[in-house]
């Protein structure tokens, strides 16, 4: 299965990006482009949902790491929704589990967002982006 990318705004500076299908060397440039396009329209906080991802390889992880870096350059950040054991193991293997804040579902993110504001996009033990409202 190829990759579908669904994007929905969570606020003027925040977007939910849902990935459906396989993220590999063929499809990851589209993920990279989607993140870049959103950044150019002023989005700097991302929640990327991996719940419907069937396969994610190093190029997909690279696109997420790159998107996070560019978001942080603008004072934002990028968090993930992921409860799939296989993908969580991949994040653990690559050390990225300690870089991304990972939520088991969107509801947990929204609860954190209500409590913490934009700090909910950042890993709690890593200094986040700016404290400006999205």
């Amino acid at each position, binding site marked *: 299965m*190829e990759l579908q990318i669904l994007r929905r705004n969570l606020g003027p500076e925040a977007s939910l990006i849902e990935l459906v299908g*396989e993220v*590999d*060397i*063929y499809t990851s440039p589209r993920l990279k482009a989607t993140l870049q396009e959103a950044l150019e329209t002023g989005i700097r906080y991302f929640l990327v949902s991996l719940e419907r991802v069937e*396969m994610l*390889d*190093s*190029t997909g*992880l*690279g696109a997420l790491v790159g998107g996070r870096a560019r978001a942080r350059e603008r004072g934002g950040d990028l968090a993930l929704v992921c409860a799939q054991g*296989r993908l969580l193991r*991949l994040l653990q*293997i*690559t050390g990225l589990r300690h870089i991304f804040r990972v939520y088991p579902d969107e509801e947990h993110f929204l609860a954190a967002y209500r409590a913490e504001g934009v700090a909910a996009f950042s890993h709690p033990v890593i200094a986040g982006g700016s404290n400006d409202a999205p």
Partner: protein
Amino acid sequence: MPPEALVSLRVPGLPEYLLVVRLMVSGVATRMNFPAEAVEDIKLAVSEACTFLLERRRPSAQEVPPLEVRCHLQEQALAIEVEMESPPSPSGSPAAEALEPAGLGMLIMQCIMDEVEILETASSLSLRMMKRLPPAE
């Protein structure tokens, strides 16, 4: 199953063919009764191996080199070779870039497969990897 069966696939060395490669190795691993989680690991590792080779393709190469995937179905393991022809460098020495650290992809392959090695000759670059079947209960 014979002591060692071979299933091979040759596709153009282009990213859009990785889906085809994953379908092939998935079928082979399922045929060998690997658990579902191991089948996913094998698909990911082969995808990473193909990506490793595609990223090291010489930009100067005019023609798309074929990517060849060979699955050796052994009694207790699946051995996979992924190979891409690589034209000799001008000096005739093996491609130096192949020896550079491979980053996340290599780390993933090493963590999810039992063995991984890179082989380089003057005319090709390949990865060999192995996944052993879990002991029968």
